[in-house]
């Protein structure tokens, strides 16, 4: 079946512009995660949804970052007034979210954001 998809794959923004990154999770997956991966680093957690509820946004670096998942499926990560330090790969992952303790996160290909 289809995996996690993200769009756009690449985004170049001028400093100060707003950007919106989209994630389409695997159909039926309850849990959705956003991570930020800076060059040469491991992914860092940004935020987590269970269905439409944002249960954890402790990783969002500033109030310029905002995420939503209004219908419990597609999610959008929005970055307002982009800064150069926002340049990174943004990864989306989904998991079934069953209360089995055994679910795995499946990752999309990422969106590479470059802020000039």
């Amino acid at each position, binding site marked *: 079946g289809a995996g996690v998809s993200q769009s756009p794959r690449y985004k170049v923004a001028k400093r100060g512009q707003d950007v919106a990154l989209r994630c389409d999770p695997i159909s039926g997956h309850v*849990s959705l995660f956003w991570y930020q991966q800076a060059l040469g680093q491991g992914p860092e957690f940004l935020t987590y949804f269970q269905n439409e509820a944002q249960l954890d946004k402790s*990783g969002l670096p500033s109030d310029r970052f905002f995420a939503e998942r209004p219908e419990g499926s597609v999610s959008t990560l929005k970055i307002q007034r982009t800064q150069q330090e926002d340049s990174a790969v943004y990864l989306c992952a989904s998991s079934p979210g069953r*209360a089995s303790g055994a*679910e*795995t996160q499946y990752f999309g290909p990422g969106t590479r954001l470059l802020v000039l």
Partner: protein
Amino acid sequence: AQSVTQPDIHITVSEGASLELRCNYSYGATPYLFWYVQSPGQGLQLLLKYFSGDTLVQGIKGFEAEFKRSQSSFNLRKPSVHWSDAAEYFCAVPSFRGSTLGRLYFGRGTQLTVWP
């Protein structure tokens, strides 16, 4: 809080040689552990996971990993490396939200180069 350490930033091996990538974790209880691989420009692909039971776990692409509680380690191994294994490898440990898995904590990754 959970944490993961990958001591080797970069490893180079010859094709056909054996491989071991190190991962040490910090966790208060018996952890769940993951190894992911990331090829250039791609998202993260799950290689294998440890949840419980047999401490030697088999994964895809001929990889295996051994959980050693006494050493807080979950090292990834492959007996004979192929040129296509060149990629970045990440070890990860999840948090828990009730009985479901939450965010992943990643190590900084190990870049594998394979010489022909």
